[in-house]
């Protein structure tokens, strides 16, 4: 780890100012990912701007949306009554992620900002365009079992690691930010990026921009929801594949649907085509299987992750079944 400066701030403006003054500065909240990356010399910020004292921990209903402060802890959101009642899918996804200890440290904003867990990104002796642009993609022809099948590029096939973000993209969330140019709102589906030619950029935040909140419409996906995460052990592992499913069912007919996948792309992967295939159809395994097949259109696999072509749709079907008939 290199030596770095550390400052604390207590307002969004002061934080943005502090970060803007340095060449290579980062905000730090829970630090559950950034500190690891610094210890391994994967990220080498010269200055850390601690934002934990900024009052951005609130979780409240504002009109027809629920607003969650960027510094609300993952565990706090997962256990929040309002979230459990109005956004059970979000609560489920949070509890599927990390460990209790990490959820007690990690914030909502930090969760969105976490970096990929690609093996090559994490080893400075290996090539990785995301860590060191131009060095090549180690995973492309390497050990890519955990890697993406949608939206990949020759430069990068890494996946976005968050569970929470899969639920947020399904629930049509909006990211609220503040920066040198003031406040802005970014639709969640446009927050993270595909790798393209610039895999070093995970998201569309502008320089020195700070996430202050996430807004989720109160669209009443309160009953028929399920977050299903398939991983190599029962807990504390990243998703091999995950699915966030939310349905409105009336008289066994699907009136509305939201569907997104994790572990398959550089960004939380919303499945709008499959959603359309669900709406207006009976909530049956046949409908789910049809939607799952549509969801997999355009998938491109690599040497070690071809199984996702089967595991992906099976997980969609199972998540939809669980959503349709919650236990």
């Amino acid at each position, binding site marked *: 780890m290199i030596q770095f400066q550390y400052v604390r701030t207590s307002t969004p403006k002061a934080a943005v100012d502090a970060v803007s003054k340095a060449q290579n500065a980062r905000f730090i909240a829970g630090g559950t990912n950034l500190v690891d990356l610094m210890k391994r010399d994967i990220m080498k910020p010269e200055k850390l701007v601690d934002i934990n004292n900024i009052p951005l921990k609130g979780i409240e209903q504002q009109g027809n949306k629920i607003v969650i402060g960027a510094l609300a802890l993952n565990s706090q959101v997962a256990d929040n009554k309002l979230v459990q009642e109005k956004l059970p899918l979000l609560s489920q996804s949070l509890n599927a992620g990390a460990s209790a200890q990490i959820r007690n440290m990690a914030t909502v904003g930090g969760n969105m900002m976490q970096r990929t867990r690609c093996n090559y990104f994490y*080893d400075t002796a290996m090539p990785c365009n995301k860590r060191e642009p131009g060095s090549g993609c180690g995973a492309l022809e390497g050990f890519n079992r955990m890697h993406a099948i949608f939206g990949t590029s020759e430069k990068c096939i890494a996946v976005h690691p968050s569970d929470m973000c899969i639920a947020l993209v399904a629930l049509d969330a909006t990211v609220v930010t503040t920066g040198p140019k003031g406040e802005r709102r970014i639709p969640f589906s446009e927050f993270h990026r595909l790798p393209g030619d610039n895999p070093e950029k995970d998201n569309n935040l502008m320089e020195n921009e700070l996430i202050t909140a996430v807004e989720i419409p109160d669209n009443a996906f309160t009953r028929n929801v399920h977050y299903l995460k398939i991983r*190599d052990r029962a807990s504390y592992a990243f998703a091999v594949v995950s699915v966030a499913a939310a349905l409105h069912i009336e008289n066994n007919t699907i009136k509305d649907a939201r569907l997104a996948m994790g572990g398959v792309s550089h960004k939380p992967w919303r499945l709008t085509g499959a959603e359309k295939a669900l709406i207006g159809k009976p909530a049956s395994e046949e409908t789910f299987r049809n939607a799952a097949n549509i969801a997999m259109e355009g998938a491109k696999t690599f040497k070690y992750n071809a199984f996702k072509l089967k595991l992906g749709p099976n997980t969609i079907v199972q998540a939809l079944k669980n959503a349709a008939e919650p236990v």
Partner: protein
Amino acid sequence: MNEAFFDKKDYKSLDRVDGRLKVTGAARYSAEYQLSGLVYAVLVESKIAKGTIKSIDSKAAERAPGVLAVISHVNAIKVPGYQTSNQHPSEPPVNGQPLRAFYDNNVYYNGQPVAVVVASTLEKAQYGASLVKIQYEKEQHKTDFDANMESAVLPAQAKKNPKSPVADYSRGDKNAFANAPVKIDAEYVLPTEVHNPMELQAITAHWEAEDKLTVYDKVQGTQPTQKQFAKEWNLPPENVKVIATFVGGAFGNGLHNWPHETAAIIAAKQVKKPVKLVLTREQMFTMVGYRPYTWQKIQMGATKDGKLVAINHESVGQTSSYEEFTESTLQQTRMMYASPNINTRYRILKLDVSTPIWMRGPGEATGAFALESAMDEMAFSLNIDPIEFRLMNYTDSDPDKQLPWSTKYLKECYDAGKEKIGWEKRKMQPGSVRSGEWLVGYGMGTGTFGANRGVAAVRAELDAEGNLLMQCAITDIGPGTGTAMVQIASNTTGIATDKITFQLGNSQFPKAGNQGGSSTVNSVGPAVQAACNALKEQLKTMIASNGGSQAAFASAKTDDILFVNGQIQIAGSDSAKVDIGTLFKQNNIRKIETTQESKPDENRNKYSMYAFSMHFAEVHVHSLTGQIRVKKVVCCADAGTIISPKTAANQMIGGATGGIGMALMESAIIDHRFGRYVTKDFAEYHVPVHADVPHVEVFFVNKPDTLADPVGSKGLGEIAIIGVAPAIANAIFNATGKRIRELPITPDKLI
């Protein structure tokens, strides 16, 4: 019988004698000795898999704040014992040359320690290490086992000695398999697994004088380590002191001394200060051994009514380019079942990787995965219950050594396990039992390991308050050695356990080898017993010389002399009760002491001695997603007398947990383009978390084997894991009909 072993209210068992120290943090591990003037060392590793170091640019590192030295082959002092051979003095002969720290510019594998940076703080050393720039002359490396398997060779020791345990073996008709009425022919693959104990490998090295070395070192043997470093540094053994009072798990990777230890000792010598060196989790993958990647093939033949007629078992295990590591992968195939015809063939494959080392259930755990999977496959082919099939081929003597067993109570294990797992719910046809969307399967696997015993000595000291202090150089890597020894001493003397202390983990204490090979209770236990008996002899003589009512002690049997409520008596008689304080006062002494050695006897030549285990698993597999949940494990062990039920059950549960990891998760994967591991931390190399480990029920036959050793114990560290992985793989087959022969079994293999 649904309660866990620990929960049984009526089970009298001593709590861990050092439990409080461990859970309060008072126990000191090798990295926790804050010596005066202590400095910190961080290793720099090679980033190529084969070649030579052209140059090392350490200028920036040397200039970095707090850095005291950057040491590599360029400027390392010559380790005097390195000049000839570095064969480890206390290990069986391994052909080759162990890796020597900073000896020359050769790179044998990716992740090899090539330099060490010493600084005033850990952070400064880490930063310094990041500044060391190394130029290499790369050579073509070979790390891909599958691509190079044809280069596998017979180990040199087998070439030299046809009776070597890894030499080709044949019993009966060599070609019996060809004519067998029912045949199984299958290949099995076990990936590289890494011990990964919770405590990272750590050493604090301190030259107390120019020729006097003390190391606080995470090792499994203090005296083997003492011998090794004495040899390396040309010192008399008494000038080297090794302390390993607490070891936070090891599973075998502390059975060898590794270059990082010598690196710390070199560094301490060069900076003239005590040096602490702790490996990172990543370095644990390349610097302290692992369970080798192993390919196996089994050809099994049987009659239609279930009699084995042939087993051909082949194995190829990975080793490094510089040492021939071998293990007993095929041993149980020779002795477990009554097949008249057996061929085994063991080969090693030298790759540009680091040398493996024994990992819990070494060899046998790997071999059992193949053998016990094949037994299950054969039983299924024959439409015979897998337990019945094993009973039909049960052997009442060792067909390999052609000796009677000292004891074998495996049938008791079958019976108990069958009942506890609910074997009657199992159906022969896979996929027959469901629980909602989950497929339910039951499987079992047998384990065995030699009931080993070595030489050990114990010093015992009894004071006027009746406190018994014992000392032995043995380590305790977690099984609860101190607890078991206190129990043996209490059983032998009648002294209350809270008045007994067992000190260990110090090379200056009486003789002991490594804690390894399930041999500690069998080796040290008898020495404890002998020392206690010698003390009782002394007491007896002292008491008898008082005459009068105490003269009866002269003719009492030593076994019968016991402390009862703190007073010395002849058990089972209304003898005089002697107060030890008074006795010592009369004799004008403050304490008595003795040192007793115990060693294996001639029974070892007359009997075949093995511990046995049976593992049963109930596993659920999701029909759509392939998710695997081990729902229940039952472990039954024939390990002789169980000295300390709690710590013994703890070992069995730990073994089951390790077996779940082996079956379902663990795999250290190399990207062969770079010859470098890509799964080398706990995020990528999975071990079971609590949610993966179900209720584990433990059953002990608990019958003594006094032919094996006087305390009647056969050891259980290894049999706790041997057979667990095949039990799970067999249960998965029973659930799904899918026979997975390459571990680990992950969801993608089941959809």
